[in-house]
């Protein structure tokens, strides 16, 4: 063989050939079976998938151009295009195309690496050795494939679709396939959320309550939990395990069930709570027909649900605090309150702060609490499709499943994402986990 001046000749040639056509670089590297398989893959894709791909992209861009034809009596003469199915097909093809590009990149990388081995004078592997090598090196990919496919179709694809919807006019009653076509409208839906009073009123009203609710729900449960954790930790309490198990019950019972129980208990006419109020001579409270009392009930019921979680977590923290800290503080003459303020509280806050932010994000989107307990009611005449206790997420639910206002629901979802993502990223950067995480590929 010729002694090469530049030690990377085979590597570069292989990579370049594989860039031109899949598998060429491998064949150049004398890995014939592998190269042939790669080449066959590209041929297969080119021959059988070019046309469907072009059609899918056309569909994604136009969202269909044949409107459904109906006769005077309303029977369908010609089916027409279904914009939404075209859109989803388009996204699937776009994702598959990206996947193909990834395989293509791997093919180039492989040709480069094998070429580099040859440059160093090593012999390229034969096919069986390649398979064995791929099995060891590619084990991660093999493990990841099922999860990847699942996540692609149940999370990524639906999310991309959900975001794209915001830029269309997909909404009832005039733009619902298969009867009508849907079109791209750019930022029109975003501007109408701000410009039209009916929308902006609802959005601001619901948003305000969502924030108030999330803050109240997080802090009431947090401090109630803290209170009971401290109480149970007190040295005079006997049978600690019994009490803890008892107080953890609201967390153990399925939330859907207990929310429906509360829905009945707070029933204005028949519910036991109003019955008891009447028995002791007070007026019945209109729990579900007055906005203030409905909100009040939601927050109180949420304490019932939420405090055991914090209590359990904080009890764990409390039992792990080094007893010597307290003894040292006592010798230094610190009183009970002082010990609490400078030892117990900081330690608890330190270990639960990240959870506090996650809990805020959770409450911000606590659909079950609102929808199962009040269903968003009482009705609010000045809102579009939302009740007085609706939070953003339950409003979106109603917009989507009850009103077919898909595009508006999507715009509000994007807003929620920005808020939640903002919090999560802020939280994430603060926690050690991120700094410790070895993110180097």
């Amino acid at each position, binding site marked *: 063989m010729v002694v090469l001046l530049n030690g990377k000749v085979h590597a570069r040639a292989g990579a370049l050939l594989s860039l031109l056509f899949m598998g060429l670089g491998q064949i150049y590297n004398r890995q014939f079976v592998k190269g042939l398989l790669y080449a066959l893959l590209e041929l297969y894709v080119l021959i059988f998938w070019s046309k469907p791909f072009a059609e899918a992209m056309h569909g994604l861009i136009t969202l269909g151009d044949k409107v459904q034809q109906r006769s005077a009596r309303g029977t369908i003469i010609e089916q027409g295009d279904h914009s939404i199915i075209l859109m989803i097909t388009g996204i699937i093809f776009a994702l598959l195309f990206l996947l193909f590009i990834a395989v293509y990149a791997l093919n180039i990388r492989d040709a480069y690496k094998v070429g580099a081995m040859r440059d160093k004078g090593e012999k390229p592997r034969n096919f069986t050795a390649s398979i064995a090598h791929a099995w060891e090196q590619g084990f991660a990919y093999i493990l990841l494939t099922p999860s990847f496919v699942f996540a692609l179709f149940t999370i990524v694809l639906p999310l991309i679709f959900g975001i794209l919807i915001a830029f269309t006019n997909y909404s009832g009653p005039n733009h619902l396939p298969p009867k009508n076509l849907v079109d791209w409208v750019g930022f029109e839906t975003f501007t109408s959320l701000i410009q039209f009073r009916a929308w902006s009123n609802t959005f601001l009203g619901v948003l305000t309550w969502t924030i108030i609710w999330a803050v109240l729900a997080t802090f009431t449960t947090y401090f109630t939990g803290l209170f009971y954790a401290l*109480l149970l930790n007190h040295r005079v309490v006997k049978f600690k395990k019994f009490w803890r198990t008892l107080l953890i019950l609201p967390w153990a019972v399925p939330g859907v069930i207990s929310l429906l129980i509360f829905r009945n208990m707070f029933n204005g006419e028949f519910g036991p709570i109003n019955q008891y109020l009447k028995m002791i001579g007070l007026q019945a409270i209109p729990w579900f027909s007055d906005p203030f009392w409905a909100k009040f009930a939601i927050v109180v019921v949420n304490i019932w649900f939420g405090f055991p979680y914090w209590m359990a977590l904080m009890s764990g923290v409390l039992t792990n605090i080094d007893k010597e800290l307290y003894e040292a503080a006592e010798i230094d003459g610190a009183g009970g309150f002082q010990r609490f303020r400078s030892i117990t509280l900081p330690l608890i806050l330190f270990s639960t702060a990240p959870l506090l932010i996650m809990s805020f994000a959770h409450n911000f989107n606590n659909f079950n609490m609102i929808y199962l307990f009040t269903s968003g009611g009482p009705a609010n005449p000045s809102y579009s499709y939302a009740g007085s206790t609706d939070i953003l997420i339950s409003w979106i639910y109603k917009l989507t499943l009850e009103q077919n206002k898909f595009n508006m629901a999507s715009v509000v979802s994007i807003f929620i994402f920005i808020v939640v993502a903002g919090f999560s990223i802020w939280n994430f950067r603060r926690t050690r986990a991120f700094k410790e995480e070895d993110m180097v590929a």
Partner: protein
Amino acid sequence: MQTSTRPGDKLAAWVIYLILIVTAIAVIYPLYWVVLGALNPGSSLFRTSILPTGLTLDHFRELFNETDYLIWYRNTLFVAVMNMILSTVLVVTAAYAFSQFRFPGRKQTLMAMLVLQMFPSFMGMIAIYILLLQINLLDNLWGLILVYAGGSIPFGAWLVKGYFDAQPRSLVEAAKIDGASNFTIFFRVMMPLSVPIVTFVAVNNFIGPWMDFIFARLVLRSSDKYTLAIGLFNMVTGRSNTDFTKFAAGALLVSIPIALLFLFLQRYIIEGLKAGANKG
């Protein structure tokens, strides 16, 4: 230190026990009220007496005979078990790949999973609906299982990956030197070390379907396909008050096993949540 009594302890004990007892009543009352509704004769919400006036199993009989309750129960159990198996396998394999291997695309995928978690889960509802419709899995329990299993991956994989990362690498290295294959290392070294976190993931995914309302409502359309959450919701929101005692009986039969399971495994659940907090 613990046994020494101090001045003021007696008063403190009185106050604390008083608070605890009042709280215990507040915690238990709603649950007691359901037990009462399920076992007491008569069928109204209206009840002034706190003690039962009699015992009857009529409401359970009505529940079994007049509604699809047993079918809903079987459906939910099926979805829960299948989701538990599928999700745990997916989550653990993905987490193991992320924890033990360094491969191109790893960092990007990890970041993508973090971001994916932050979208409201039903932003994808319409797409999921249409996809399931296209592949004929709408109103089908398997459709729901696939949706649940897919959704459990990002959070679960991050959580379990964090746990795997914390295990001593020397064990894996030693096994590798001994010539163990990836499979052996996974099953013989990693799995035995990870029982707590795997239990947490499994339990979480088992309990999930008993609680979920949104996706079950989206995917399941006919009464014989309902899970318990949907069935019971329709029972109390539909024709309202007359059905309450049937609902109570049904609620009891769900809550008891789930609550027992939870209490029995609470150590794992609390540990798992703490781990989740530290890893984002």
